[in-house]
């Protein structure tokens, strides 16, 4: 049953994603690819839309993926799944275990999780980069350099690093996506 699968998958994603925003990106990627729900390209488009519409990215992604697989009820099942663990855990903490976050053991476990989540985000970025620029998904693929994608990446990487030095704030994600879209139109049309 697709609704149950969507619900359970996003329940899992909601329960183990730490660090907000892109903390859940490696797990979402694994799940949608292994279920055959989206291709890597579609996933990147969905992320772009989720990033440039209001609301938490994880909720946007869940609604989007759910809707793409099973319409309104699918969107509802996935969104409910991703929100439920948060809701239950926070209720428990707020009602019963106000001090649980201050226990040294909990802090120690979180201290181990944080670097791992950082690694998961960086690793996912590298995987996506290899596949976008070099068409390299597994070792069996022939390397096929897409120089246009390489140019877009180089320009974006340089401007995302240089911009904060002049304006003292980071490049807004929406601005960055618009800019990359314009480059896409010029290079690929």
């Amino acid at each position: 049953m697709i609704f149950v699968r969507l619900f359970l998958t996003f329940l899992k994603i909601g329960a183990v994603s730490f660090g907000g925003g892109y903390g859940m990106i490696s797990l979402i990627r694994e799940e949608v690819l292994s279920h055959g729900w989206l291709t890597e390209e579609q996933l990147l488009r969905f992320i772009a839309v989720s990033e440039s519409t209001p609301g938490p990215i994880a909720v946007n992604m869940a609604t989007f993926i759910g809707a793409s697989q099973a319409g309104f009820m699918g969107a509802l099942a996935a969104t409910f799944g991703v929100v439920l663990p948060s809701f239950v855990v926070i209720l428990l903490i707020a009602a019963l275990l106000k001090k649980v976050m201050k226990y040294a053991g909990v802090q120690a476990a979180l201290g181990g999780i944080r670097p791992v989540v950082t690694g998961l985000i960086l690793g996912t970025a590298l995987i996506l980069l290899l596949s976008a620029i070099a068409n390299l998904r597994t070792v069996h693929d022939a390397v096929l350099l897409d120089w246009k994608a390489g140019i877009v990446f180089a320009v974006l990487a340089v401007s995302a690093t240089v911009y904060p030095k002049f304006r003292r704030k980071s490049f807004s994600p929406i601005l960055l996506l618009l800019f990359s879209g314009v480059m896409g139109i010029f290079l690929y049309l």
Partner: protein
Amino acid sequence: MENRMKKSFKLFFIMLKIGLFTFGGGYAMIALLENEFVSKRRWIQADEFADMVAIAESTPGPIAINAATYIGYQQNGVLGSAAATVGVCIPSFVIIFVISLFFDAFQQIRWVAAAFKGIQIGVVVLILSAGLKMLRQMRKTICSIVCVVLTTASLVLCSLFAINFSSVFYILIGAVIGLSIYFVKRLWERRKTEVGK
């Protein structure tokens, strides 16, 4: 009872507004919540709010949902937390659902498809910079750096060699490593003080 309903409605609409106007996820929303509940309405004290943010950041799930649930509960019990959480999700849900109806057709337009080829790279850059930002903010010890490098390398290699190893396991292993270091350190310190005696 009537008062509690009223307050829950109010929470619902405040969260609806915040859900509608935050772009870019969790951290942007924290700023809006602070403005609304601490500065403007004074429902929450500043230090309490800081505690709440620490909890929302370090529990699983989207930060915005964690924060909404917590504030809702603190203001008005379970009813309040449900009202706040549903409120913050509705704008996302409606907007994305409407977009999903037209998205396939939209992608068929030639120049949109071209734009998306660039945007895909933009998304990769966003994810990469989110990871780099977390790396900069991380407390750097030998162990944490080794953890980052090993996780990154293993994730990329597993993907290249098509080996299935879920991210869930990485997170569990991370928690176990963190706990083990803590217990070893504690044992070590206890032995040192015993020897000192």
